[in-house]
């Protein structure tokens, strides 16, 4: 198992990187941390003619707070996210999710941008990006554009990125003070890709009823699945076991056809999604 013959370039500017991707004479692919792409190259499931490594491009590796958002450069490793005091304090949901992404040995190289661009339906980061209402800053030959996370993840391993576009930054709005959150995941072993998981945020109004929530599931569809019906069901409701169970039931009813594989059939994934919604909501409300 070795990659097929390929060329490699490590340009120093974004413009050069985009030009290499836009050159139609050979099929080019970005390589970031390589933690998803290298297995595909080794198994020859991917055979690009050129790898464009972003490691020398300046300005893609940062975590900073600006205008009420935490902006994370695409080449920032998950290890840096995990160890960032800013993320722990401002985006505890992202911090919690990071600890479930593979193992420390994978997080040392795997990047934030790579997880978004890979768009694995069982991955934690796309789900958290949708739950927190993140936006993706993307650069291509035509310039720059911003894509809301909800529109970025199209389907299995497919994003709104064009082949000659590079994801440069993910911007996570900092939730309003008092927003509760939870992150729940079920996997066969800690560090494995999830069978299913849920990222939840909830805000209560002055009267203690649910003002707003985001309930987003992963591992149960072609990408992050926002549970609109469950969110609508609990809006204005009074937190308590009954409301949490109703949210779980609404999730189960709305999930038409969760994927089935050797680890879990469709019905089991539906069951997990409902249970994680019920439990996760209770946990999120406790944190408000």
């Amino acid at each position, binding site marked *: 198992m070795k990659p097929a013959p390929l060329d490699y370039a490590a340009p120093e500017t974004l413009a050069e990187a985009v030009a290499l991707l836009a050159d139609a004479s050979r099929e080019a692919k970005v390589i970031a941390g390589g933690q998803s792409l290298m297995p595909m190259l080794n198994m020859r499931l991917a055979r690009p003619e050129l790898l464009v490594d972003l490691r020398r491009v300046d300005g893609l590796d940062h975590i900073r707070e600006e205008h009420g958002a935490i902006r994370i450069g695409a080449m920032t490793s998950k290890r840096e996210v995990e160890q960032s005091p800013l993320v722990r304090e401002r985006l505890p949901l992202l911090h919690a999710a990071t600890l479930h992404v593979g193992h420390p*040995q994978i997080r040392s190289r795997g990047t934030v941008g790579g997880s978004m661009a890979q768009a694995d339906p069982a991955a934690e980061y796309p789900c958290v990006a949708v739950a927190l209402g993140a936006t993706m800053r993307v650069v291509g030959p035509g310039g720059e554009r911003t894509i809301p996370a909800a529109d970025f993840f199209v389907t299995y391993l497919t994003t709104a990125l064009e082949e000659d576009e590079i994801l440069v930054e993910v911007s996570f709005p900092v939730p309003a003070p008092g927003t509760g959150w939870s992150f729940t995941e079920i996997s066969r072993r*800690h560090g494995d890709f999830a069978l299913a998981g849920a990222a939840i945020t909830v805000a209560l109004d002055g009267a203690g009823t649910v003002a707003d929530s985001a309930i987003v599931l992963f591992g149960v569809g072609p990408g992050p699945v926002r549970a609109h019906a469950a969110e609508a069901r609990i809006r204005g409701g009074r937190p308590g076991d009954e409301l949490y169970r109703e949210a779980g039931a609404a999730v189960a009813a709305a999930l038409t056809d969760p994927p089935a594989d050797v680890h879990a059939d469709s019905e089991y994934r539906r069951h997990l999604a409902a249970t994680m919604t019920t439990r996760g909501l209770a946990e999120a409300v406790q944190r408000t």
Partner: protein
Amino acid sequence: MSEHTVEVTVNGVAYTATVDARTTLVDFLRAELGLTGTHVGCEHGVCGVCTVLVDGKATRSCLMLAVQADGLRITTVEGLAEAEGLHPIQEAFAEEHGLQCGFCTPGFLMATHELLEANPDPGDDEIRDVLGGQLCRCTGYQSILRSVHLAASKTRAQRAADAHA
């Protein structure tokens, strides 16, 4: 297929070499530099036998191209011990029977090394989090867990002794 000149420091020795773009770091270490202590198993990031330190961080050398190591500092299992004797982590694995066939051991040693450099007094959970990224088909892991605890106490003792010296 492009060829590249890489300058890489492995176990403190500077090497300059020409590599094909597609050569993985683990193949470079083993075939070009003859450092066969780093093993290669699954070649897709799952088993962890190929784990080396890249600028001090535990990394799968099967998921990195040699050309990507240009300018970086690599430590392999050959770089653990001084010229004579064993490194305290290696001693601990020997004393607590943290290996049987030994195929997985280089990866466990390097992952443990990074863990203990950062924190010589890790809790059980922290150790399990790291060991969870390494597969062993022989031991059942309990002896490895004990080995890492022993290695941690050896590391602490050594640091205390160094501080007094």
